[in-house]
């Protein structure tokens, strides 16, 4: 992760100089100084490159003066209309253009502190790289960027704006790391272990194994796990930011009911006995993205010392076919007491979620509950890769989520719930089936989950199957794990549930 610094403006002696430029912006600060030093060559070069400062535009000028290896101009669009989203995207676009330099200086004199910080966030998020399993990559091919200095006259304001964003970026990176890890490395036991270091941030971490889960009656989660050689885990993470931290007193008597986030963590999903087709099955390593996101979110909230009491719970299992695996036709008893006829062992995510959600409500009585899961292929067919599907029993929470997603480019699209869909889950032998057929497949999945939400409890389910992983580069994420949801839910908390 490149280091980000905010410093007094001074002409860099090496590396890259980045010029964020608005349309019709007048050169000032380092931009003007450099232009003067090289006799107007910067202005001429930008004109020759037809660089106008439009959103998405960029231009590189090589070695205009001694010491500076490259000058990168990056467009911000119309001055006065620059949003944090635009600044983030500009920062993200900048990263690729300066990654081969060891250091870069951003001439940020013209950017107000929130935009400078957003630029830095975009750049940092785009710099993410998961390369721990590459052993033969040539040095020349690797990015080299170690430090990015933002030249600004408002260094203190920028640092203040940056501190929480840095914590959020770390949460995003934790989530992306977990999602990117291969499934032989990141199995349920290992994933639970990786939550422990978060105690350093002030989180309380509890890990439950099969013995405890059996006692809690989590027959649905255990049924999914029983085909794997690796034991399942449930991790309970608590952040008592409103109640004064990790003190025993705070834990005993929190000042408020917490908000709750629940994540599906299927570390690999073969489909089980209802096995998936081979093509693309490797993608199923990221079937734990909901859990990875919740872990990253909890790290972000703790890292920025959010003034909220929050709990994050993840159910971690591996869905494997084997002699001990669950079969289609099995009936399992959930922690809530309701019974489920397992029609398709590949609809396992909801079986994991229902037990964890029941536990979360019984123990914490949360103000609201949001669950995240790469739950259905149907949501990809419904919405594609630009929106996560959102299902909610509460219009206020739904509106808050919709609003929170826009500025952080993690958009959600509300999908319907209703009795007619719920009826598709009717079983002849148990309280419900675990699938409702192809029509409205992601809706019936949400209906299933809703049966485990206490009456009157605000709840939203985010089906992130289409957005957890990107097959192409995004403005602030390289292709691969996106950590979709960390920023959205952090924003939800920041906008409505702090203080």
């Amino acid at each position, binding site marked *: 992760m490149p280091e980000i610094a905010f410093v007094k403006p001074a002409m860099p002696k090496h590396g890259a100089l980045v010029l964020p430029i608005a349309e019709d912006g007048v050169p000032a600060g380092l931009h003007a100084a450099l232009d003067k030093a090289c006799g107007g060559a910067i202005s001429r070069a930008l004109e020759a490159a037809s660089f106008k400062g439009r959103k998405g535009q960029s231009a590189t000028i090589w070695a205009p003066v001694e010491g500076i290896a490259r000058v990168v101009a990056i467009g911000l669009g119309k001055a006065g209309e620059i949003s944090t989203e635009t600044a983030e995207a500009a920062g993200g676009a900048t990263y690729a253009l300066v990654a081969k330099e060891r250091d870069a200086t951003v001439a940020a004199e013209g950017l107000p502190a929130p935009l400078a910080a957003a630029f830095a966030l975009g750049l940092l998020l785009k710099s993410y790289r998961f390369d721990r399993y590459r052993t033969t990559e040539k040095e020349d091919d690797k990015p080299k960027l170690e430090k990015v200095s933002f030249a600004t006259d408002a260094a203190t304001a920028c640092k203040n704006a940056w501190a929480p964003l840095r914590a959020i970026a770390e949460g995003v990176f934790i989530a992306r790391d977990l999602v990117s890890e291969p499934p032989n490395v990141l199995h349920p036991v290992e994933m639970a272990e990786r939550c422990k270091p978060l105690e350093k941030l002030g989180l309380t971490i509890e890990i439950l194994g099969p013995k405890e889960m059996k006692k809690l009656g989590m027959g649905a989660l255990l049924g999914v796990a029983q085909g794997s050689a690796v034991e399942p885990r449930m991790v309970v993470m608590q952040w008592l930011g409103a109640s004064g931290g990790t003190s025993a007193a705070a834990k005993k008597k929190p000042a408020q009911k917490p908000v709750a986030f629940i994540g599906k963590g299927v570390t690999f999903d073969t489909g089980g006995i209802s096995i998936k087709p081979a093509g*693309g099955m490797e993608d199923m390593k990221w079937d734990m993205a909901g859990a990875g996101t919740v872990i990253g979110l909890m790290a972000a909230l703790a890292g920025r010392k959010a003034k909220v009491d929050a709990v994050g719970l993840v159910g971690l299992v591996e869905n494997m076919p084997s002699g001990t695996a669950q079969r289609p036709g099995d009936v399992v008893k959930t922690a809530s007491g309701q019974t489920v006829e397992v029609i398709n062992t590949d609809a396992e995510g909801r079986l994991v979620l229902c037990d964890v959600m029941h536990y979360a409500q019984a123990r914490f009585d949360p103000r609201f509950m949001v669950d995240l899961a790469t739950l259905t*292929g*149907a949501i*990809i*067919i*419904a*919405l*594609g*890769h*630009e*929106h996560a599907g959102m299902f909610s029993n509460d219009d206020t929470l739904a509106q808050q989520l919709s609003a929170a997603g826009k500025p952080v480019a993690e958009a959600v*699209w509300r*999908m*319907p719930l*209703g009795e*007619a*869909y719920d009826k*598709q889950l009717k079983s002849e032998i148990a309280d419900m089936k675990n699938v409702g057929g*192809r*029509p*409205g*497949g*992601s*809706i*019936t999945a949400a209906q299933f989950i809703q049966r485990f939400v206490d009456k009157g409890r605000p709840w939203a389910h985010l089906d992130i199957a*289409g957005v957890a992983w990107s097959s192409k580069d995004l403005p602030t994420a390289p292709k691969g794990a996106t950590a979709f949801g960390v920023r959205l839910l952090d924003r939800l908390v920041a906008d409505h549930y702090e203080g």
Partner: protein
Amino acid sequence: MIGAEVRLRAAPKPGVALAVPVPAGGVRAARWAPLAAGFAAGLGEQRDCATPEGRVLLLGAGQPQRGAEWEAVGAAAVRAAGPLKRLALMAHGLPPEAAVALATGAALAAWHPHEAPLRRLDLVVDNPAAVAPLWARAEAAVQGALFTRELTALPGNVLHPAAFAARLEELADHGIRVDVLGEKRLRRLGAGALLAVGAGARHGPRLAVLRWRGQFAVPPVAFIGKGITFDTGGISIKPAEGMERMTSDMAGAAACAGAMLALALRNSPAPAVAVLAIAENSMGAESYRPGDVLRTMSGRTVEVVDTDAEGRLVLADALHYAASQFQPQAMLDLATLTGAMVTALGSHRAGIFTNNAALQAQAAAAGEQVGEALWPMPIGTRHREDLASAIADLKQCCSGALLPDASHAAAFLREFAGDTPWAHLDIAGVRLDEKGLPTGFGARLLDRLVELFFEHPDRH
């Protein structure tokens, strides 16, 4: 007149089976109280009683508030009555709107394509004269919906493009101007997409244009319908299983035609047009192929990726025709367009895609009133980007698995709507009920949309 005839009466005729809705809280009239002793009156409950005056059917009605809920009670009455020729509905004490909704639900439920014994419904109300004008409006919508169902139920060998056009020409009897554009005129218009889709079938494609003048001198509201009389998928042929349901792939066009009939029957003051793209997507030496590039009527070129994504092609030409010929106030297209829509919303809601939020809200409100529910779906930046073609202005769809094809289709259609306020209703999941019979979805919605939002006198 399609289906059972509804007549208003002040009193039930003795000997005719009488359905009595019982709202939660008990019967309204003392007369039925002895029969209703211990009857819980929850929605869906019923009690069949033999009385000296004839058969009395008590129907639990719950607490109906909206019209759609009263319709459900009326439908339950018909189902509970069994195979009768005549049935009376007791609506004494009900507000006229509720009585009319009760009859609407009953009349719609009484329809069946070939085994509908019920010929007569007596709606028993306190004051028939006061209810009559309301019923006349409702009956128009019912007739529109039943016309839609009749067309949709017809098999592909009976309702081929020529036959579909002929059926539409019958609407001239109701004051609707009907023009059917054949292949020659379509060629002159440059309707390359519609012509290509229809090329493989024995009966060539048609563009049917229905016009209702109304009384207001304003641009019309336009309905655009997909009318694929049978969809084999073409060269990109469909799997055999379930292909027989493709006889209903013209349900969108049928719904538009049904809505026009409703407007005409109730003499709506609002001008309206329907542009129906009619073709059979079959296979033959003349069939269009994946990889073909078509020039649409708008001049835009389209790369064909999958000949089974034919609906959006015929609609492209129909939308352009409607927008350029009529400069409508608003355009709504209805189409059984994508399997993706079924995966997304199932069979309880149709998806609506739009370039105009107000129109979307209006259509959704109309749908709620008539029990034809919509749900807004997105057209994202990425959906449009996915249609970039290397050889033409745009691709018709994408190939692969797990594709948001309903949104891709909507992004495609939006290109042909221009600046006209436009909404696209993908009715693939709602065109048939659980028994496989056509629902007529859309005809009543469009009729109600016009009634609610396009008949205000300010629109003169």
